[in-house]
């Protein structure tokens, strides 16, 4: 790799051992990728949260994050970060230890972890939707983000430039303000590969989730270009769509010409090249996606309903509350509505916390079931409007799951029964 003078100085240890270790990792990583150089970044989002077992084992945040964040067995002291840096999700909401099965030790560790991050200058956004709480990158901005659902959103919808980074690369990027110039940082890599002719009218969170799940399955980690989208999708629809493509496949970028940032037309999205493959999305494909997402569900006795993967916007909270208002969820069932912490503040201002609590649910922030390995005790059957959560939770937690509309899920919470169906 070709390094600039400031990069060479860091590599020589001129800015201390920790930054040296960080840039050493970035050089190894760039070499693995086949990158020719690094690029400056001032927008990094990662994950430095200690779980109970690791923290007990390592005894300090410095030791643990030296390993997971810098690939260093030696414990290094962390200086202030160089880039604007955010903590994305965490593994618990400190306000709901009980419900999550966390104890005093977990709570103390979490608070200490927050303090440690804050001390090195990392913003505690604690969400997988940082673009809902002020981290809205500009088109062309070089970022280094983790969290596949956020990556696909900012690359595609906003036209920012990031690969789907990992713990180590984001930690190294925070400390150095650098990331390999490769992949979605370059024009070439952002061009479309697969053309998807969407023959149906796609409207609503569930439909966009199905479309995304199908496309991810079909294109893997390639770059799909959607043609035939007639109605401008909402931010929340795109959020669910992207998360679904990144779960069933590894989509980090897509184009909806005229709506997403990079291309006005299908031709532009392919950069003049011919699509490698052409797919269609019609009634059969929709049905296939629905069945894939619902194949783990047999038991219609739902005991856990979850909204907010990726974390809910205030608009989604409002929609849920409009459906929930004046109702009570079934005894023995649980309802979790997940939001970024800052959105919880907004929600409270409008009294949505009360609506959810009176119905017997919980307005939770900072975390999610899949990320925190958290579920209400004894959960057997989940219902959710999130394709991502329906994809991951059965594998991770050994439960059954149903995927459907927000309304079907609210009904399942109230009646305790799944009555959703593809209409």
């Amino acid at each position, binding site marked *: 790799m070709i390094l600039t003078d400031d990069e060479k100085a860091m590599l020589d240890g001129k800015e201390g051992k920790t930054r040296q270790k960080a840039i050493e990792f970035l050089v*190894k990583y760039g070499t*693995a990728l*086949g990158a020719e150089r690094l690029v400056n970044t001032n927008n990094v989002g990662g994950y430095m949260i200690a779980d109970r077992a690791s923290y007990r084992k390592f005894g300090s945040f410095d030791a643990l994050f030296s390993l997971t964040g810098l690939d260093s067995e030696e414990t290094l002291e962390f200086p202030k970060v160089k880039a604007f840096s955010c903590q994305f999700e965490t593994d618990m909401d400190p306000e709901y230890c009980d419900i999550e099965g966390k104890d005093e030790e977990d709570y103390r560790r979490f608070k200490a972890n927050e303090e440690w991050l804050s001390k090195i200058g990392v913003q505690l956004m604690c969400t997988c939707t940082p673009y809902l709480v002020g981290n809205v990158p500009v088109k062309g901005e070089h970022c280094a983000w983790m969290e596949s659902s956020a*990556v696909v959103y900012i690359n595609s919808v906003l036209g920012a430039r990031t690969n789907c980074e990992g*713990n*180590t690369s984001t930690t190294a990027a925070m400390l150095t303000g650098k990331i390999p110039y490769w992949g979605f940082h370059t024009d070439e890599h952002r061009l479309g590969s697969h053309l998807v002719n969407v023959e149906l009218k796609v409207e609503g969170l569930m439909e966009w989730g199905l479309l995304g799940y199908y496309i991810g399955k079909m294109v893997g980690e390639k770059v799909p270009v959607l043609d035939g989208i007639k109605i401008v999708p909402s931010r929340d629809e795109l959020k669910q769509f992207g998360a679904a493509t990144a*779960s069933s496949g*590894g989509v980090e970028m897509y184009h909806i010409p005229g709506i997403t940032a990079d291309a006005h037309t299908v031709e532009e999205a392919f950069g003049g090249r011919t699509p490698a493959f052409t797919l269609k999305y019609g009634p059969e494909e929709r049905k296939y996606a629905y069945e894939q997402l619902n194949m783990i569900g047999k038991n219609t006795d739902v005991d856990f309903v979850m909204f907010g993967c990726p974390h809910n916007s205030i608009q989604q909270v409002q929609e849920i509350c409009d459906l929930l208002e004046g109702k009570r969820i079934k005894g023995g069932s649980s309802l979790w509505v997940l939001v970024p912490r800052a959105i919880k503040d907004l929600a409270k201002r409008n009294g949505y916390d009360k609506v959810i609590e009176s119905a017997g649910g919980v307005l939770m922030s900072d975390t999610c079931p899949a990320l925190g390995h958290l579920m209400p005790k004894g959960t057997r059957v989940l219902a959710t409007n999130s394709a991502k959560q329906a994809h991951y939770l059965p*594998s991770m937690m050994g439960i059954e799951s149903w995927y459907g509309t927000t309304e079907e899920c609210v009904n399942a919470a109230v009646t305790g029964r799944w009555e959703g169906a593809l209409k």
Partner: protein
Amino acid sequence: MKTILHGRMVVGGCAEGEALVTSEMISGWGGVDPATGTVIELRHELHGQSFKDKVLVFPGAKGSSGWSGVFQSTRLNGSAPKAMLFNVMNSKIAVGAVVVHAPAMTDFDRDPLQLIKTGDWVRVDADKGVVEITSKD
């Protein structure tokens, strides 16, 4: 019968072992149990099988950005693959390969998914860019 493959080093080093081959991309977070190296993605063809001490041959990495974290954990838990051979480069697998510390290669002259079968004995010299396959049959 021995077959030779050439490719590009991703992470240097030499290792050998039995091949575990899949034509499906692997999800790290939510797809692999880091304690045992077992694939847990319900819909995956390797579901229930562990890559511990195997030479893992696969198309590439998919899914969440937790990929590298999970693969780093397999190293710490002693359940990492001996080596990784894959076709599609992306940032998840690149970070993952670096933190696994095992030799890794990509950009082969022929498709390893076609040439290597599960159970074959595979010797990987990533520094030299050479893979030697001894068919089990």
